[in-house]
């Protein structure tokens, strides 16, 4: 009897957080799922957008430029959700993780792209936060909306909100 090829499993994830610890969780799960043969969709919205941004300044309007200054940089600027201490926490966790040979956040994200993880910016947040597609790293797909995400989530075996 011919064995039936099982359907490819899939994971759909919203990444709303820009916190270092939560981004670690998001990218570790995404890379792991891709390695396990799953189709992975990551939908980046609001604070999560910086995780796919290049280190470029953004913003057109006064508020947009202020946000670009205050929430600027790229993924390596992400602070932990606790023990932030104005950047000290980032440095400390960076040291601790380096000592334990944990990959950098940017490396994990780039690995995720290499493994074929599908990353999308949320069009509405991009407009509000004035972060255009050109400010994102290569490999991020064209922006989508919540309808697209929900379609992916409906069909997914795992749905996560981070």
């Amino acid at each position, binding site marked *: 009897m011919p064995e039936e090829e099982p359907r490819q499993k899939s994971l759909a994830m919203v990444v709303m957080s820009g916190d270092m610890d939560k981004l670690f969780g998001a990218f*570790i799960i995404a890379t*792991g799922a891709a*390695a*396990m*043969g799953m189709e992975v969709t990551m939908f980046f919205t609001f604070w999560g957008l910086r995780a796919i941004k290049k280190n470029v300044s953004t913003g057109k309007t006064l508020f947009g430029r202020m946000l670009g200054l205050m929430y600027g940089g790229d993924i390596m600027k992400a602070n932990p959700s606790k023990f932030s201490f104005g950047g000290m926490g980032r440095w400390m966790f960076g040291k601790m993780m380096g000592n334990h040979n944990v*990959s950098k956040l940017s490396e994990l994200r780039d690995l995720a792209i290499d493994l074929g993880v599908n990353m999308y910016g949320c069009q509405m947040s991009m407009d509000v936060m004035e972060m255009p597609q050109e400010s994102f790293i290569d490999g991020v797909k064209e922006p989508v909306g919540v309808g697209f995400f929900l379609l992916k989530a409906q069909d997914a075996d795992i749905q996560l909100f981070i």
Partner: protein
Amino acid sequence: MSDETKIDLELDLKGLLCPLPMVKVSQNIGKVEVGGVIRAIATDPGAMADIPAWAKSTGNEVLQAEKVGGEFVFLVKRVK
């Protein structure tokens, strides 16, 4: 078992932490033919759970997962 199994690819995963041992196995499994075997040596204890889970999910087979001193030695067979 390890003495008689033919190894097609050696993988050094020492020092790597989650999720990299599993990711490296998945990135390298295509380098051996179907039926071929990878020997992977990791130091992350989490790999003892993760690599068998990876194999189950991807339809491959772990012939051996063994703690040898401070290291974890896996024989992973490509099934498809």
